[in-house]
């Protein structure tokens, strides 16, 4: 397992602003966790249909990176995308309504879990086709460069995407034209049930991405403080130097590939491995630091959890009570 490279500051010597930021990191991860626990319930109740991919275990990656963005920045992701929009501040009610296919959903019920969009929050889409988001993000960064803006684009995807030809075409163009895009591979060791060593000729993905003329590095994706510290550096680099960056965040999903995989851990990974990674739960690690350093008390955390549960409950109620899209919506939005 990759050890944290950038030593996170311990919280004890921190300012109150910094303390508030730490608490916010925890709050966001907890919101994503509780929100997705509710998704799982709604899926079992057949309120959510189709494919549902949960982010449980990987929350530190989205939260750590997105905490460092500015409002001119953009985010594009793959289909495991609830964490991105929630970290960007999308309304949990609209996200849940989308997952239930309701008219009040982020995309009027047309996209579903794999295809969230929230332009107001700078999220330019979750994409269901492996590799697809890489081209989109590269184009978004192309616009930032073309218009000489100082924004950067984050592109999140899984280790499985490393094998899409499109990724390598785009890495080449991004390197060639110095596009301000940060490619973040969330290496959770599996693409569905195929382990990294069975799908990638080089298992060090940062190394695999190192030949396109822009920097690449591996980071610990289970520790949100470390992700945040790395993200701060990487984003600053890209914003100033105007060149791409590749980040391999080592992480792990604590749930099956999709909610339909009821037999997790399944035939492709062991229960022991799963349990070992759960010991590195990003929420638990941050909680230990926050409480240990006196940033927040157990009872304040409990209050936070209660508040978040209420937000999630309200999102579920809102989604349940929202109307289905009207029949006419079928033919709307096909062409602009």
């Amino acid at each position: 397992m990759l050890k944290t490279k950038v030593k996170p500051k311990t919280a004890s010597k921190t300012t109150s602003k910094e303390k508030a930021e730490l608490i916010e990191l925890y709050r966001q991860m907890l919101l994503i966790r509780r929100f997705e626990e509710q998704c799982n319930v709604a899926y079992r109740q057949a309120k959510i249909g189709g494919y549902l991919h949960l982010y449980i275990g990987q929350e530190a990656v989205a939260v750590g990176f997105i905490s460092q963005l500015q409002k001119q920045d953009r985010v594009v992701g793959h289909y495991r995308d609830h964490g991105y929009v929630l970290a960007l501040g999308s309304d949990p009610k609209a996200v849940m309504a989308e997952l239930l296919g309701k008219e009040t959903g982020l995309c009027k019920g047309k996209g579903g879990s794999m295809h969230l969009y929230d332009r107001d929050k700078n999220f330019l889409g979750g994409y269901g086709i492996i590799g697809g988001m890489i081209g989109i993000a590269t184009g978004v960064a192309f616009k930032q460069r073309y218009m000489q803006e100082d924004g950067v684009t984050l592109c999140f995807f899984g280790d499985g995407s490393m094998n899409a030809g499109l990724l390598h075409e785009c890495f080449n163009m991004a390197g060639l034209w110095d596009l301000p895009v940060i490619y973040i591979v969330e290496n959770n060791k599996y693409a569905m049930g195929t382990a990294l060593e069975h799908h990638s000729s080089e298992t060090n993905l940062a190394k695999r991405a190192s030949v396109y003329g822009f920097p690449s590095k591996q980071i610990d994706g289970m520790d949100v403080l470390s992700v945040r510290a790395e993200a701060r550096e990487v984003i600053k680099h890209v914003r100033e130097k105007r060149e791409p960056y590749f980040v391999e965040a080592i992480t792990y999903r604590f749930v099956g590939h999709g909610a339909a995989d009821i037999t997790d851990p399944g035939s492709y990974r062991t229960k022991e491995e799963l349990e070992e990674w759960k010991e590195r739960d990003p929420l638990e690690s941050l909680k230990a630091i926050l409480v240990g350093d006196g940033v927040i008390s157990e009872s304040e955390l409990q209050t936070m959890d209660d508040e978040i549960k209420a937000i999630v409950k309200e999102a579920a109620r809102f989604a349940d009570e929202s109307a289905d899209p009207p029949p006419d919506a079928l033919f709307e939005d096909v062409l602009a």
Partner: protein
Amino acid sequence: MAQMNYRDAIRLALIEELDRDERVFLIGEDIGRYQGTFRVTEGLFDKYGPTRVIDAPISEPGFVSMAVGAAMEGLKPVVEMMTWSFGILAMDQIVNHAAKIYYKSGGACPVPMVIRGPAGPGKQLAAQHSHSLETWFAHSPGLKVVLPSTPADAKGLLKTAIHDNNPIIFMEHPQIYGVKGDVPEDPNFKIPFGVADVKREGNHATIVTYSRGVHLSLEAAKQLAEEGIEVEIVDLRTIAPIDMETVFRSVAKTHRAIVVHDDWRFAGFGAEIAAQVQEYAFDELDAPVLRVAGADVPMPYSRVLEKLAVPTEQDIAAAVKRALA
């Protein structure tokens, strides 16, 4: 005969062919250790090992292209497309390469390979995972396009596909993997391409269809029978090559034709059937050829919108009545 579902019938054909010919190998995403997304290849990795049941990276253009090269040199690749929606990524390898090599080599290089997997709407799989692409491939000379509707047809047609000397597009349907039926166990049982099967006889109207459309049409036929309307259902089974003779024979009996498919209506396969029927059987027709097909929109995620976007039994029954009006 043995009772089995569509999924198991496909697996049985694969097993028989893996046993028969060591040049046959399977390649595709998550077909091995994960046992296949739709469990078609369940158990095969354990039985045949990683040399013959190969878990591929998410590189559709790559492994389809490799299969083409391997086939030119005499291997018999059976590629699994996790869903045909991802086949779009390999369009160049299929249409520009696999379909053209035999012709442009002046007949020197056949490409004996099969690409199989589910196509068509599942349940709320939304815009990027619900494509029916048969018309895209049928449109290209140099390919054969197979769309079985029953377990027996699936087994018999897949056997023929693996024995064929051409690139075969084999489209299963995600909604019928669990459908059960009698399947001949004889390892020599094969169903030839280009031979339609009349799945139900009737005198009042002809429904021309394939894949899931057969099941929808059989349901509609039951409703219509209660009202005294007897439809004939022609299951094309392969759309390239296509058995229009059976269609013409049926239309000569019923004088009405309705085409049913999940694929988009606009420029969909129904247009080809309608064109041929009016071109060659115009005098037999008592009504225009009608089409019951998918709405011309990207597949919406919402359950209620999805229902409106895909053809239903009711749509078919209504079209039959319109043809008879």
